[in-house]
């Protein structure tokens, strides 16, 4: 949620959450056939989207589908043929284009860093254009380098050519954030780095967004990236038509069309699992007992439970392992040596996809969910995961039907 106290843009040296709504109102961009042949970007056809403040909206689709065109119409690098784009309710066409652009963060795939300026000067670009005092420009640049994980004392005086692709991309993000814009446009920002670096940048980006809560329009052709990063996702088809505009879970569970289903891929079931965490599922419970507890009572409780195993815990409730019902003694105390099998320990933040993968590999296909201290919280089984996905798919379908009907 954005901070309710308004922050004057001129006083935005701290990163007070400050975001704007973005609305596409029947926006169309057409190119004459000659321009289209000469490699004009994709056309856009009657686009209407409403992006709430402080959210990440991912525009995803095949190349030439108009997603980049849509993005560039927000900061008027491209002017729409028809329709309006509103930032916080104000039509961008009515605003001075230079002032508009200085108030919108812009990150592109090739970074567009100025090769002739130091990293610090690159980051301070918009503050410099806005005429901030020199000292404040410098201070802001240093602060932002820290925010994106680049030590200012090491990086500030370097030139872009002296940085790796991933580092340059971080500088690009820092530069876009410099004047604390309420809206950020990001055009395949992580498209040119290798998969390992991309994954790391994505994670940092999400962590950053948790603090900054900007309104972000993010263009990618990678559906996995869209699902991972988007609060909402707009799936574009050739010709600049939005096939579906919904949260990622809904797109995966209930694709609005054949095109969306094909675009998200045959493995969309698995992709949905990667969106859900163990935390989101109602956990089951196994019979448990602590080492040293009386065996008779434990055996009785295990008999009454449909699960033919008892989960043995230590004194801090941390799981030790499974005891087969048949091996539970009628009397005496429970001890470690009774344990015949273990199963994977799952953190509550483990995704269902990882959980499933671990379960399929384990001796006992029951995941034991533990809290941060490692204490037992519950169990999760393959059946539960399957049941959860069925249930949520049905709910999503109902929601999607309600939205279109």
């Amino acid at each position, binding site marked *: 949620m954005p901070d309710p106290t308004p922050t004057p843009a001129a006083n935005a040296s701290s990163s007070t959450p400050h975001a704007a709504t973005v609305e596409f109102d029947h926006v169309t961009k057409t190119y004459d056939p000659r321009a289209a042949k000469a490699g004009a970007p994709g056309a856009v056809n009657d686009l209407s989207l409403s992006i709430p403040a402080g959210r990440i909206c991912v525009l995803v689709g095949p190349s030439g589908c108009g997603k980049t065109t849509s993005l560039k119409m927000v900061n008027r690098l491209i002017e729409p043929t028809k329709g309006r784009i509103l930032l916080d309710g104000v039509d961008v066409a009515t605003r001075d284009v230079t002032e508009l652009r200085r108030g919108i963060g812009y990150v592109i795939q090739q970074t567009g860093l100025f090769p002739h300026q130091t990293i610090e000067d690159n980051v301070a670009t918009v503050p410099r254009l806005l005429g901030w005092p020199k000292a404040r420009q410098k201070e802001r640049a240093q602060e932002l380098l820290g925010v994106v994980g680049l030590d200012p004392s090491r990086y500030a005086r370097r*030139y872009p050519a002296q940085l790796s692709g991933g580092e340059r991309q971080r500088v690009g993000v820092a530069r876009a954030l410099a004047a604390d814009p309420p809206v950020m446009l990001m055009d395949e920002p992580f498209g040119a780095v290798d998969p390992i670096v991309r994954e790391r940048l994505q994670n940092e980006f999400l962590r950053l967004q948790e603090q900054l809560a900007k309104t972000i329009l993010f263009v990618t052709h990678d559906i996995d990236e869209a699902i991972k990063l988007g609060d909402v996702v707009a799936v574009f088809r050739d010709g600049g038509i939005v096939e579906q505009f919904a949260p990622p879970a809904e797109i995966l569970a209930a694709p609005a069309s054949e095109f969306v289903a094909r675009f998200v891929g045959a493995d969309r079931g698995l992709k949905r699992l990667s969106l859900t965490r163990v935390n989101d599922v109602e956990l089951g419970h196994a019979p448990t007992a602590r080492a040293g507890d009386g065996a008779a009572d434990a055996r009785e409780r295990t008999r009454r439970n449909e699960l033919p195993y008892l989960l043995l815990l230590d004194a801090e409730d941390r799981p030790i392992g499974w005891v087969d019902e048949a091996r539970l003694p009628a009397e005496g105390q429970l001890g470690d040596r009774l344990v015949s099998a273990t199963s994977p320990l799952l953190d509550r933040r483990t995704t269902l996809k990882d959980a499933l993968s671990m379960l399929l590999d384990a001796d006992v296909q029951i995941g034991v969910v533990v809290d941060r201290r490692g204490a037992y919280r519950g169990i999760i089984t393959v059946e539960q995961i399957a049941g959860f996905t069925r249930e949520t798919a049905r709910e999503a379908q109902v929601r999607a039907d309600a939205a279109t009907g």
Partner: protein
Amino acid sequence: MIDWGWVVDHLDDLAGRTIQHLGFAVAALAIGFAIAFALSLWSLRQRRVYAPIIGFTGILYTIPSLALFAAMVPITGLSVLTAIIPLVLYTLLILVRNIVAGFDAVPADVEEAANGMGYTRRARLRAVELPLALPLIVAGVRVASVSTIGLVTITGALGDRFGGLGFFIFEGYRRSFPTEILFGAIPAMVLAVAVDLALVAVQGRLTPWTRAEVQPGMSSLDPVTADDVAPKAA
């Protein structure tokens, strides 16, 4: 072989002619650069004028210099312009080609980012495109200056008031006096080399980023190593 006596007697003359030589060259280069820069900006904004401009300056470039100087005399008489105008015309082809190439070499993503961040056209030209075009522009100025310094000697054909160090070459030829020819030609060559080296030094000062040393493990070909370091700095 060399008449050192003549040299010692004419040191003042040599200095004066060197200054004249340099003056002609610098004036021609400055005026030529201003015209070429304007023509280049015009070409960059309206691409279709580029080919005619290059065609026209190319034809100028092929005119034999002696003929062009002679052709100026009926128009401008024996004024300084008679020497300067042809010298200026000969710089245009090289300078326009290099200035346009310099601006064309500015990476498209840099231009797009500059536009997207709200640079005005003028600010973008001054603060982004010009610095990035500088290496190729300076390269053009270097070639033009060497050729101009050579051509200044030809203006000696217009009379004793012209020619810079070329005056000695023409006079030495007339008098069949090799020492004088040598002391016209060698200082002219030294001048050309000195100006070239000075321009290299100026470019180095103006484009520090081209000299920035790429650190091991920091090259763009090695992103993972560099990134492995970065999070620890957070």
